[in-house]
C-alpha cells in the first residue's frame, strides 16, 4: 500500500505505561532513531522513584516525552501531539498533557477491570466507553494480544513474550514517522547477543508492529518530519550525565592526568559513575565509597596525589560533603564536584528536577569559603561545562562546583561533538624537584593568578605539611595570627574572583541590548527560555535572553549588560536563588518567575511571565 507522507514541522510524542512496560527503552530507542534521521530533538524521561512501583497505579506510571522537528528544538515540548499509553493509569495521568485533537495510541488490554480499578477509575467511567475521549483521534488495539499472537511459535514463556510488547509499539511508531528499523535491530542484537530467543522475539514483534501499522489502515497517511538544517558537522545523540562523564574523561586526557572518581550512588547522579566505569581503558579509577563523605575524601586524597579527582552527587549527598569541601578549599588542590540537582529539601523528590542547590553551592560551607560555581544549560552543554570545571580546578588549584539537574542529566539531544584537537588546552604542571640550596619550600606562595603550586608526594625537596587549620600565607604552617587569617580569607576570595579573567564574557543569547526586557536564566531553563524568546520575536515582541553559565565568579561584563535593561525577569526552578545573587551583586530590581513542581518550565509558562511583566 502506498501512502502519502504528511509533512510536519515538529512533533511531540509521549510514551507512557507501567514502570515495567519498558517505556524508557522504547523512548530511548525512538530517540536514537530520530537523532540518526537528522531531526533536532529534546527528551524528558519521567519515572517513579520506586524501582517496582505498584503495578497499574498512577504512582507506577513511567513516561518518556520526545520533541523532534525539522526546525530547531530546545525543549521536550509543553504538551504532546501523540500520546502512547499502555494502560488506564498512564492515560489518566497524562491526558491533560495531550493537545486538543491530539492522537492517542492505546493498548486496550491495559483497560480491563483490574487496570481500571488500580488506576482509580470508577466503574462505568471506562474512558474507552464513556465518550470522554471524543475530540481526540484514538487508535486502540489489544497490543498484548497482538504480541502474543506473533510469538505463538516462540518457546518463551508468557511473561517473556509479554515483555516484548513495547517493541510492537516502537515498530508502530516507526511506521508512523516513516522510519527504518535498523538502529533498533542493531541495538537488540547487541543487547541480547547471548539470548538468541529473546532477540528473535523482540525483532519479530518490532517488525510486526511496523507492518501492523501499515496494514491496519488506521492512518490515511504517514508523517514525515524532515531532517533539521543544523550547522555542518558530525553529530551524535547525547544524554546529560553521559556528556558530563565524557567531559571529565576528555579533560583528564587533555591534561595528561589520571582521572579518579570517588562517589556514592545517588539518584540522579549515579549514571556519571556508570558511564565512567565503562571507559576504564582511559585509565579511569572509579571508587564506589562507603558513603558520600568518603566519596569526596577519597577524591581529595587522589588529588593530593596528583590525579584529576572528581566526586558527583545530588543535594543530600552534597550536604554531607560540606566539611570536606572546606578542606579542599584550604588545601587549594583541584577537585571537581558535580551536583545533579533534584527536588529538595532532605530526601525531597529524588527522581524529579529542581534548581534549588545554587545557594548551597555558593554558600553552603562553614567559614568564608568561596568555591567557583558553574552550571550546564542543556544535555550536551554538560560536556562543555564538565570540561570547564576541570580546566578551572586544575589551572586555579581550587575545588569547582558543576551544577546540572535531573532534567538535563537524563534528557537527550543531538550533539555536534568536538574534535579532541579543538578542545582548549589545560595548563598543568606539578612542582619540580628542589635541592637544599634553593632554600625552604613555600607551598602557599602564589603566582599572579594567586594560585599556589601543585606539589605532589614523591617530589624531592618539597616535603611539606597541609591541613585544615589556618595556614601561614607562605610557609603553609599552622598560623593563628589575626593579621594572617584576615589576609588568607581575603586572598582566597580574591583568588576565586580573579577567575573572572579566565572565563568567557557574558553574551546575549538572543535579542538585543535595546530590548526593554531581559530574561536572565541559568542551568536547564535554557531551552524553554530560548523557545519563548524566539516565538515572541516572530510575534513582534522584542525580548532579550542571557544565560549565565559562570555563576561564581560571574562574567566581568554582566553588570554592564544588566544595566541596559529596564526590566529583568529571572525564571528559576526554585523559590528564587540566582535572583538573590544578582540583586546582591548588581543592585538591580530583577523580578522572579518561579516553578517548584519537580518538572521543568513549559515554554508557555515563561511566555506568560514575560507578557505579564511587559503589561505592567
Amino acid at each position, binding site marked *: 500500500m502506498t501512502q502519502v507522507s504528511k509533512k510536519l514541522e515538529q512533533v511531540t510524542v509521549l510514551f507512557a505505561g507501567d514502570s515495567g512496560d519498558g517505556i524508557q527503552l522504547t523512548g530511548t530507542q525512538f530517540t536514537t532513531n530520530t537523532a540518526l534521521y537528522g531531526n533536532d530533538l529534546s527528551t524528558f524521561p519521567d519515572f517513579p522513584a520506586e524501582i517496582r512501583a505498584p503495578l497499574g497505579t498512577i504512582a507506577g506510571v513511567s513516561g518518556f516525552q520526545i520533541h523532534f522537528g525539522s526546525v530547531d528544538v530546545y525543549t521536550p515540548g509543553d504538551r504532546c501531539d501523540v500520546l502512547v499509553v499502555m494502560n488506564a493509569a498512564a492515560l489518566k495521568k497524562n491526558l491533560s498533557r495531550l493537545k486538543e485533537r491530539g492522537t492517542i495510541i492505546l493498548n486496550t488490554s491495559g483497560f480491563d477491570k483490574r487496570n481500571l480499578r488500580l488506576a482509580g477509575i470508577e466503574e462505568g467511567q471506562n474512558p474507552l466507553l464513556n465518550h470522554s475521549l471524543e475530540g481526540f483521534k484514538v487508535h486502540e488495539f489489544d497490543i498484548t494480544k497482538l504480541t502474543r499472537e506473533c510469538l505463538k511459535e516462540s518457546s518463551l514463556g508468557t511473561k517473556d513474550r509479554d515483555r516484548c510488547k513495547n517493541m510492537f509499539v516502537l515498530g508502530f511508531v516507526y511506521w508512523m514517522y516513516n522510519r527504518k528499523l535498523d538502529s533498533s535491530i542493531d541495538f537488540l542484537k547487541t543487547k541480547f547477543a547471548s539470548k538468541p530467543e529473546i532477540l528473535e522475539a523482540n525483532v519479530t514483534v518490532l517488525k510486526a508492529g511496523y507492518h501492523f501499522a501499515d496494514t491496519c489502515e488506521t492512518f490515511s497517511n504517514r508523517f514525515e518530519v524532515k531532517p533539521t538544517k543544523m550547522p555542518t558537522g558530525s553529530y551524535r545523540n547525547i544524554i546529560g550525565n553521559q556528556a558530563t562523564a565524557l567531559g571529565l574523561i576528555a579533560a583528564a586526557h587533555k591534561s595528561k592526568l589520571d582521572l579518579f572518581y570517588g562517589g556514592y550512588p545517588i539518584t540522579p547522579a549515579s549514571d556519571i559513575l556508570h558511564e565512567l566505569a565503562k571507559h576504564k581503558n582511559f585509565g579511569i579509577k572509579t571508587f564506589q565509597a562507603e558513603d558520600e563523605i568518603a566519596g569526596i575524601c577519597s577524591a581529595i586524597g587522589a588529588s593530593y596525589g596528583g590525579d584529576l579527582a572528581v566526586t558527583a552527587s545530588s543535594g543530600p549527598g552534597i550536604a554531607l560533603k560540606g566539611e570536606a569541601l572546606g*578542606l579542599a578549599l584550604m588545601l587549594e588542590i583541584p577537585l571537581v564536584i558535580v551536583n545533579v540537582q533534584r527536588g529538595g529539601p532532605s530526601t525531597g523528590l529524588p527522581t524529579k528536577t529542581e534548581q534549588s542547590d545554587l545557594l548551597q553551592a555558593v554558600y553552603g560551607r562553614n567559614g568564608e569559603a568561596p568555591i567557583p560555581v558553574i552550571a550546564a544549560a542543556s544535555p550536551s552543554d554538560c560536556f562543555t561545562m564538565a570540561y570547564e570545571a576541570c580546566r578551572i580546578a586544575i589551572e586555579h588549584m581550587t575545588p569547582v562546583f558543576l551544577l546540572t539537574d535531573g532534567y538535563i542529566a537524563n534528557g537527550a539531544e543531538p550533539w555536534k561533538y568536538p574534535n579532541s584537537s579543538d578542545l582548549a588546552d589545560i595548563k598543568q604542571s606539578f612542582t619540580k624537584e628542589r635541592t637544599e640550596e634553593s632554600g625552604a619550600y613555600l607551598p602557599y606562595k602564589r603566582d599572579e593568578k594567586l594560585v599556589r603550586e601543585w606539589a605532589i608526594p614523591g617530589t624531592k625537596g618539597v616535603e611539606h605539611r597541609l591541613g585544615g587549620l589556618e595556614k601561614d600565607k607562605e610557609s603553609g604552617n599552622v598560623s593563628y595570627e589575626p593579621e594572617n587569617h584576615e589576609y588568607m580569607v581575603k586572598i582566597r576570595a580574591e583568588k576565586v574572583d580573579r577567575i573572572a579573567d579566565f572565563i568567557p564574557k557574558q553574551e546575549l543569547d538572543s535579542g538585543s541590548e535595546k530590548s526593554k526586557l531581559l530574561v536572565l536564566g541559568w542551568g536547564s531553563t535554557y531551552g524553554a527560555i530560548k523557545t519563548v524568546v524566539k516565538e515572541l520575536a516572530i510575534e513582534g515582541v522584542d525580548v532579550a535572553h542571557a544565560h549565565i553559565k559562570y555563576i561564581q565568579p560571574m562574567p566581568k561584563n554582566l553588570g554592564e549588560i544588566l544595566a541596559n535593561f529596564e526590566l529583568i525577569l529571572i525564571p528559576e526552578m526554585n523559590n528564587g536563588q540566582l535572583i538573590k545573587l544578582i540583586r546582591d551583586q548588581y543592585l538591580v530590581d530583577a523580578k522572579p518567575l518561579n516553578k517548584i513542581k519537580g518538572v521543568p518550565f513549559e515554554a508557555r509558562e515563561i511566555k506568560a511571565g514575560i507578557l505579564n511583566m511587559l503589561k505592567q
Partner: protein
Amino acid sequence: MAEAKDIQEEVQKLTAKDFVSDQDIRWCPGCGDYSILKQVQSVMPELGIPKEDIVFISGIGCSSRFPYYMNTFGMHSIHGRATAIASGLRAARPDLSVWLITGDGDSLSIGGNHLIHLLRRNFNLNILLFNNQIYGLTKGQYSPTSELGKKTKSTPMGSIDHPFNPLALCMGAESTFVARALDREPKHLRNILMRAEQHQGTSLVEIYQNCNIFNDGAFGGFTDKQTKKENSLYLEHGQPLVFGAKEDKGVILDGFEPRIVDLTNGEFAKEDLWIHDEKCRNKANILTRFFDDPSNEGALPRPFGIFYQEERFRYEEALNEQLDTVKELKGVPDLDKLLAGSNTWEVE
C-alpha cells in the same frame, strides 16, 4: 640503574633527625605522644624509603597533630576522614608509603565507618591508632573506648556507654594485620612499626597512649613496674603464651576457653601452653577478647604484639590490574572515538 643506586645511597644516609620538622611540638609536657613520635622518627630511616615518598595523614584530635612534626609529606585533615583520604591517595599513588595517624575518637567514633571499610578493602598502608580512652583536645569527655562508669565532664554520673574493644572490631572488619603496642615500651613499639610497614595490606596498630592531663594512668596496669608483668602478655609467633613477673603463668586453650595455668606446680609445662600463631584467625579472635579489667581477680592478661597477619589482595593492586586488563582488551584509548560513540551522522 645508576639513579636507583644514588637514591639507595641517599636513603641509607638518612637519620632520625632528617624526619624532624621545624615545627614546635604542641603536645602537653609528659604526653605519651612524644614517645610514639620519637619511635616513628627513628624507625623511618630503617625503612629504606626516600623521605619524599612517605606521607603521614591524620584526622582531628591531639594525636592528629602528628604530621606537622614529621619532615615528610603530610596532611592534617578533618575529623574521622583520614582513612578515606588515605584510601584515595593509595588508589592514585600505590608507589607511596602511607601512614595514618588517628585516635580513639577520630577512628572509632566519628570515623568508625571509614575505618571498617578501609580494613576490609585492605589498602596497603599503616594505621597508628593512638588510644588514650579519652577526648583530650576537647578537654576531657569520655571516648568510645572509655570504661563503663567513667566520670568525665560530659558524664558526671558515670558513662553508660559500653566501650569498644578496638582490636575485636578490627578483626570483625576483616583486618589483615592487627597489633597492639604501648607508648611506654619503645623497643617493642619499634618492632611492631617495622612489621606494620613490611605487611602488604592495611596494618592496624593500636597504641596505648597515656593522656597525663585528662586520663592519667589509664594503662597503669600495663606500664607500672609493679604490675605490668602480671597483667601483660607479650605475643611472639611460635612461642607459648607465658606471662608473670617470674614467667610463672601461662595460658592454655581449653576448648574455646582460654584459661590461666600455673607453671610452677608441675601440672603444666611451657610445651602444654597455647602456642601463638599469627596466621590463625580463630585464635586471634579469641586473643582480642583478652580484654579484662586487670584489677579484677583472675583477669586474663592483656596481649601486646601482633595478634594476626594475613596475606590478602590489596584494593589498589586489584584496581590497577583491572585497568591493565581493560587496556589490553580495548587497546590504546582514542578520545575521538569515545566522543563520537557508536551512532553518528553527518550534516553537510
